[in-house]
């Protein structure tokens, strides 16, 4: 098994190399087969790993020494423990489904081979990220996925807006990366190693200053903010929807954006030592969750709605992390990967059918033309809204319960508010798209068709997962199946800190859990019913952009955050750049240097005047020189 582990990331890498170098000359079928086949193999290997890890614990594979400088040693090594194998399964499994889907979705695109090459490269980076045995390996993957995200968002590069969005994503990620990088430095300085096992083993021995731990946690969290699109670095994610829809599903919903969650969960021994850092994580998560949900309420682009929903859900995960409920966050990562991938792929199917149309005001009534898509979309929406027994129901409920337990009523209330807002805009999206009358053009109406099977099968698989995913980690009090199966599996690496501290103030009564669950569930149901009436029965339509007023206009314009960033950062930097070039270099330093040159030249000019060709001056000078000479010699 050990020897095969490097194959898991390097099979997709191989796929990338083959498709990248020779893809142009291969048929679309072979490109698709190579791309998806590599992933399938990785997925199967991951399952094998899973079994072995479940049976005999973590596997560590040292591949080669990446570099050793002094005592700074970084190995190209893999650590496959419960947490990483879990992520590997998500990445390769969902990745495989999305690859298959892309065969259909991207079929008519000229850059088909390039698309698969990039996707494979992305999977490679993502696997490095989760499988790396140290923080530097994680950083490889971390930047690698950022790069692939850049390439894929800007996939249709002829459009300048798209490549701008790609650039924005990469740069915002890089801001976070700097934080992560500094965090890694500080960790190395404190613990003398960047390998997870060493770091966590040395915590007790080194016993660092709490302030240092907090600094480390905050620096790492900056990285997580960038990657997982948290306030203030979230604006790239909605723009990233410029990429092809499978990309949005894979990168910007299921896998890459959860890297931040993974990072915090991975470093949970550090975070658990720093209540301050956890507090901030929770606060940022909560703010993001509500903020993005509010914006999501008034978006009319089907992908933008999903994007804001992703940001909001990621916020919720950070709330869970901040509450010390690492497992709950990972659980939500998992279920979210299922239903959000489903939703995105469903949206892709819609866009595919509508010939590129993304505005839900021009859709409606697609239920008849796209029955499978409609059903899976419905499942996805209900799952994210918290419909009983669907995936999101369990994972969200667990987060709410933990928030209540660790944070109290206020936190719970706000987190719940975020959840409810999610339900509202998701239902709005669902009903506006699939119910009511078709509002598009005649041409589009003729064009409407269900997607081919390569696209629908992944949808169906994901729908099944969205239904069943919740049973991975059923709470104790429901007494169904194996309670807390996932938590038990992850126990050796991550565990909810409030659960492990057994009882005391953190543990909730069963009755409390029941009442919390009933409350949130009934709210979700209520929202579903109400929005059905509002959007499907009464068919109230969102107004055109120009007619928006008041708060909804602010929401539709995303609180003007992009404009604000533009005004606060982008424009000033560009201005400074020009000013520095003009006043700093051309006029300033260079002028100074040239000034010295001119000074010398000018002095030369003055001296030149003495050389006026008039002998008497020369003679006078000679005499003066002789006088001086004698003076110095004899006086």
């Amino acid at each position, binding site marked *: 098994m050990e020897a095969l582990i490097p194959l898991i990331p390097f099979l997709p890498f191989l796929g990338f190399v083959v498709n990248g170098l020779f893809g142009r000359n291969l048929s679309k079928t072979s490109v698709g087969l190579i791309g998806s086949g590599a992933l399938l193999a990785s997925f199967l290997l991951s399952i094998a790993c899973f079994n072995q890890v479940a049976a005999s614990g973590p596997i560590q594979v040292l591949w080669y020494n990446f570099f050793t400088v002094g005592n700074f040693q970084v190995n190209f090594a893999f650590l496959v423990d419960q947490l990483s194998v879990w992520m590997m399964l998500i990445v390769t499994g969902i990745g495989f489904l999305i690859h298959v889907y892309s065969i259909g979705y991207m079929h008519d695109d000229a850059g088909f081979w390039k698309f698969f090459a990039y996707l494979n490269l992305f999977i490679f980076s993502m696997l490095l990220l989760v499988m790396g045995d140290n923080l530097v390996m994680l950083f490889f993957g971390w930047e690698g996925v950022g790069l692939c995200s850049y390439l894929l968002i800007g996939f249709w590069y002829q459009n300048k807006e798209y490549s701008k969005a790609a650039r924005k994503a990469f740069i915002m990620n890089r801001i976070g990366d700097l934080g992560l990088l500094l965090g890694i430095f500080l960790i190395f300085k404190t613990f003398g190693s960047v390998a997870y096992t060493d770091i966590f083993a040395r915590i007790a021995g080194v016993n660092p200053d709490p302030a240092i731990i907090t600094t480390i946690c905050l620096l790492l969290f900056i990285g997580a903010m960038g990657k997982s699109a948290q306030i203030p670095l979230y604006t790239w994610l909605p723009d990233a929807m410029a990429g092809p829809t499978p990309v949005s599903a894979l990168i910007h919903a299921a896998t890459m954006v959860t890297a931040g969650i993974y990072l915090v969960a991975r470093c949970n021994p550090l975070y658990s030592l720093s209540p301050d850092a956890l507090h901030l994580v929770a606060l940022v998560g909560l703010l993001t969750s509500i903020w993005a949900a509010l914006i999501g309420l008034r978006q009319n682009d089907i992908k933008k709605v999903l994007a804001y929903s992703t940001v909001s859900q990621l916020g919720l995960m950070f709330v869970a992390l901040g509450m010390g409920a690492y497992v709950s966050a990972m659980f939500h990562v998992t279920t979210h990967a299922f239903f959000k991938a489903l939703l995105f792929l469903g949206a892709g199917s819609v866009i595919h059918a509508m010939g590129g149309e993304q505005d839900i005001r021009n859709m409606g009534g697609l239920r008849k033309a796209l029955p499978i898509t409609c059903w899976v979309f419905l499942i996805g929406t209900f799952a994210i809204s918290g419909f009983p027994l669907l995936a999101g129901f369990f994972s969200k409920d667990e987060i709410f319960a933990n928030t209540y337990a660790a944070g109290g009523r206020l936190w719970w209330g706000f987190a719940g508010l975020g959840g409810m807002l999610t339900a509202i805009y998701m239902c709005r999206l669902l009903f506006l798209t699939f119910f009511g009358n078709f509002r598009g053009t005649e041409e589009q109406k003729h064009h409407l068709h269900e997607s081919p099977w390569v696209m629908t099968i992944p949808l169906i698989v994901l729908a099944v997962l969205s239904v069943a995913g919740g049973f991975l980690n059923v709470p104790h009090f429901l007494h169904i199946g194996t309670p807390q199966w996932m938590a038990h599996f992850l126990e050796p690496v991550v565990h909810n800190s409030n659960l492990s501290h057994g009882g005391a103030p953190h543990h909730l009564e069963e009755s409390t859990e029941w009442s919390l669950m009933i409350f949130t569930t009934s709210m979700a149901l209520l929202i579903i019913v109400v929005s059905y009436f509002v959007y499907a029965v009464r068919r109230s339509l969102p107004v055109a952009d120009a007619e928006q007023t008041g708060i909804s206009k602010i929401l539709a314009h995303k609180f003007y955050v992009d404009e604000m960033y533009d005004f606060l950062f982008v424009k000033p930097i560009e201005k400074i750049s020009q000013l520095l070039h003009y006043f700093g270099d051309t006029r300033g330093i260079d002028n100074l240097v040239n000034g010295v040159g001119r000074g010398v030249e000018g002095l030369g000019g003055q001296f030149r005047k003495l*050389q006026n*060709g008039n*002998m*008497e001056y020369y003679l006078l000078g000679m005499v003066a020189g002789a006088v001086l000479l004698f003076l110095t010699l004899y006086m």
Partner: protein
Amino acid sequence: MLEVVRTIPIDYYVYLSTLLFCIGVFGVLIRRNAMVVLMCVELMLNAVNLLLAAFSTYLSDAQGQIMVFFIMVVAAAEAAVGLGILVMIYRNTKSTDIYLLDNLRN
């Protein structure tokens, strides 16, 4: 020992030739007529000649006087060429004013 060597200190000759030399310099500086300037130069050369001759006598060494001959040679050559040039210049400028001779400037 010669009478002159006994009775006149060498310093007198030094002072005398210095004085003549300085008069020459002064003349060169003060006059604008190239002709007179040349004459002043001759005067300066003579001051030096005098000094050489004096030392030659005082040291009973003929070399000083030989040197004087050579200086005379140079002075004669200089006068010949200098005056030739002067005539030439006068032909072009109708003047011997050295202020006009700033062609070196450029």
